[in-house]
């Protein structure tokens, strides 16, 4: 770990194509007739209705074999009728991420596998199939390891996946577990060479005496094969558990953050990284906070933010110094003393931080709320949304069953007008920042018919429970939605519920 080198010289973002969403222009909405509906960014979640596109299971060995065949994803899901209520731990999805075009959707699970889904291409024959995602590639990204020196087992669970923007025919993504980041190349192969001189058709070496002619091998088409190869392994740089990775807008560097340190890497160099944030105290007994999430600014390659377990966010500028221990901006909201309890510190710990696509705001998620901060105002958030405030009186039980430590993520939609986050009982919530309306939806197997329309749900906090409401005490805390993703330009969302991946789409009638 190089601590004293000057900051890496980063090319400014002008030299690189900016990935910038055309602000306010969403992709065409999907309507039954196939013709694009009139665009409207304001109909974020209020007027639109959400329908289930498909429900996907992380494929196990069974479906891996059948991946090459042309099988409808739904058939796969229905064919091996495991008891879905019993999910093996390895199948639990631990991260979900769309790529920059939204064509691919990657999931990582606790078993160290990465599964990539690809969007079905629109075809005139099967208009209704557009928007479905099918398995594109599956590979084992990380294996369980054992650190002999420290007698520690290193979990293979994939903590985060981040896509690199596409620069050639292949796709690149970063996946990380607690200790090691890997760069994977996912490429298609649809041709293979035939007609070798020295090898026969099965690949065995031919007896040179039998070779009498010379020919040039030719490329012949073959069935499409998607292969994933690890191109870089960035290891041994983190003492504590990695919680975030973030690709810089210069597309040459990325950062990885653990509980106490953040390292800056160059994609080409795997044997060294720069430490840019270090909050480890000299005396560990004085430890009061840890880093919980970190992200680069979407456009400014010198700027990043990191959140802490104390509910604060720090924005740092790498041009200021090599070691960014001194923040440029410090975002903190004063605590409300009336809400003080034993668990105030736990519920103020930020579990996720995300820049808006515009780069003007950040969104943070703590246990009970989602907050939107303007980068120019450090003393309080501009918006606060209560996700499940009815849990505030149940914090002690949630502490006992460890639910209070759940790390929920939050996402922006493509136009930064709607934010989404998960909750318990397989509920997830969307908040429209413009209309101030919100909706609670459920990712459940009961509504699993394709194109089924999601009905808004409501939690009853007290008093008389109406027919469709669910009371707080009936919530299933083992069914939690921690990971969600929103398509970068369209209203398609991916919601991970334990071992199921639900894909919903907004449909305008």
């Amino acid at each position, binding site marked *: 770990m190089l601590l004293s080198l000057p900051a890496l010289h980063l090319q400014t973002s002008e030299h690189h194509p900016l990935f910038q969403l055309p602000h306010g222009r969403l992709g065409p909405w999907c309507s039954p007739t196939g013709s694009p509906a009139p665009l409207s960014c304001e109909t974020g979640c209020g007027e639109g209705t959400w329908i289930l596109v498909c429900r996907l299971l992380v494929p196990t060995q069974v479906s891996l074999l059948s991946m090459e065949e042309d099988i409808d994803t739904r058939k796969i899901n229905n064919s091996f009728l495991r008891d879905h209520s019993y999910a093996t731990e390895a199948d639990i999805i631990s991260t979900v991420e769309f790529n920059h075009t939204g064509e691919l959707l990657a999931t990582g699970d606790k078993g160290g596998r990465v599964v990539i889904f690809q969007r079905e291409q629109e075809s005139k024959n099967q208009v209704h199939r557009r928007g479905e995602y099918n398995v594109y590639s599956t590979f084992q990204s990380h294996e369980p390891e054992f650190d002999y020196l420290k007698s520690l087992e290193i979990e293979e669970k994939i903590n985060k996946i981040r896509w690199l923007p596409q620069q050639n025919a292949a796709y690149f993504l970063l996946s990380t577990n*607690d200790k090691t980041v890997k760069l994977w190349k996912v490429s298609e192969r649809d041709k293979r060479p035939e007609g070798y001189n020295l090898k026969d058709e099965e690949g065995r070496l031919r007896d040179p005496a039998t070779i009498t002619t010379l020919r040039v091998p030719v490329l012949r088409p073959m069935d499409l094969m998607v292969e994933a190869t690890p191109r870089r392994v960035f290891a041994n740089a983190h003492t*504590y558990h990695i919680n975030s990775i973030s690709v810089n807008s210069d597309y040459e560097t990325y950062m990885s953050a653990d509980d106490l340190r953040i390292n800056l890497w160059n994609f080409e160099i795997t044997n060294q990284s720069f430490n840019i944030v270090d909050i480890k105290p000299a005396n560990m007994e004085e430890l009061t906070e840890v880093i919980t999430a970190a992200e680069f600014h979407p456009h400014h390659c010198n700027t990043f933010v990191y959140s802490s377990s104390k509910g604060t966010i720090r924005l740092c500028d790498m041009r200021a110094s090599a070691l960014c221990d001194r923040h440029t901006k410090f975002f903190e909201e004063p605590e409300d003393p009336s809400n003080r309890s*034993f668990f105030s510190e736990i519920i103020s710990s930020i579990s996720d931080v995300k820049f808006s696509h515009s780069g003007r705001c950040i969104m943070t998620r703590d246990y009970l709320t989602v907050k939107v901060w303007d980068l120019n105002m450090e003393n309080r958030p501009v918006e606060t949304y209560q996700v499940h405030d009815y849990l505030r009186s149940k914090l002690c039980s949630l502490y006992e069953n460890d639910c209070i430590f759940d790390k929920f993520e939050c996402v922006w939609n493509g136009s930064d007008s709607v934010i989404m986050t998960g909750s318990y009982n397989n509920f997830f919530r969307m908040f429209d920042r413009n209309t101030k309306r919100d909706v609670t939806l459920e990712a459940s197997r009961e509504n699993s018919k394709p194109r089924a329309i999601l009905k808004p749900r409501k939690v009853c906090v007290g008093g008389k429970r109406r027919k469709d409401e669910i009371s707080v005490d009936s919530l299933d805390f083992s069914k939690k939605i921690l990971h969600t993703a929103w398509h970068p330009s369209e209203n398609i969302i991916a919601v991970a519920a334990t071992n199921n991946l639900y894909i919903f789409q907004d449909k305008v009638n």
Partner: protein
Amino acid sequence: MEFKLEAHRIVSISLGKIYNSRVQRGGIKLHKNLLVSLVLRSARQVYLSDPCPGLYLAGHPGAPAPPQQPEESAAGPPAGWGEPPPPAGRAAWPEPEPQPERPAVPEVLRAGDSEPAATVTAAGDTLQGGEAEAPEAAWRRVEGPRETAVGGAGVSGVFPEGPEAARGPCGCPPGDEDKLSAPPASPPVCARKRGAGWVGGGPADCPAPGSTPLKKPRRNSEEQPGGEEEEEEEMETGNVANLISIFGSSFSGLLRKSPGGGREEAEGEESGPEAAEPGQICCDKPVLRDINPWSTAIVAF
């Protein structure tokens, strides 16, 4: 009163979590343990500061209270961290050997006092404090109804002093706790009640991962008074050994993340914290820093 019970319960749960984190796959999670230690500290603060009448002694009627830790009294209120080790320590050390305990315990106290109470180090003391506290708390809690019978002042102070009284004047911990040594008649009674209290005391279960067979009933029956008979015998006869093994194995177990956490590691304990490998994250945890003087004392003993 409810706050005390609630706080006590939270302390028990927190200690259980810290203990269980040892055997979690993937190593100890720094973030979660930091949060748990913060909760532990808050709960403990509430527990100590809740002015519940009858549970704290206002005065020291007839208590031989040698001021063993004068600095302790001085620093008593803010830290509050210091007292727990003394009662447990004194309970742990049998009367004939006061010497080892004196250097050991003051070490701990000085270490505890020197740290600002606001830091997470407090949680470090909390761990020991919690473990010592909770059994005492359990004792007091169980003994609550007896207050009227025995008569206000002397009762609650009796229990923490029980083991000490049984062993003679080990001395009573100074500080705002104001615990008293018990009238000699009480100890047998105390022991029985304490037995029940032990069972009810969650934290007592935490530190002893099956290090001796005695621990198992306690650990498994956290809330039920199942092993009471057994417990009181243990309390009366093997109490010293139990407490030593609790603290010895618990700390060594927490320092080393091997499930065995047995006696054989006691010797290696001093090097454990010093190793302070980042990988052994629990070594870095503030809650465990002050264990070292304890382990030294235990090993010496």
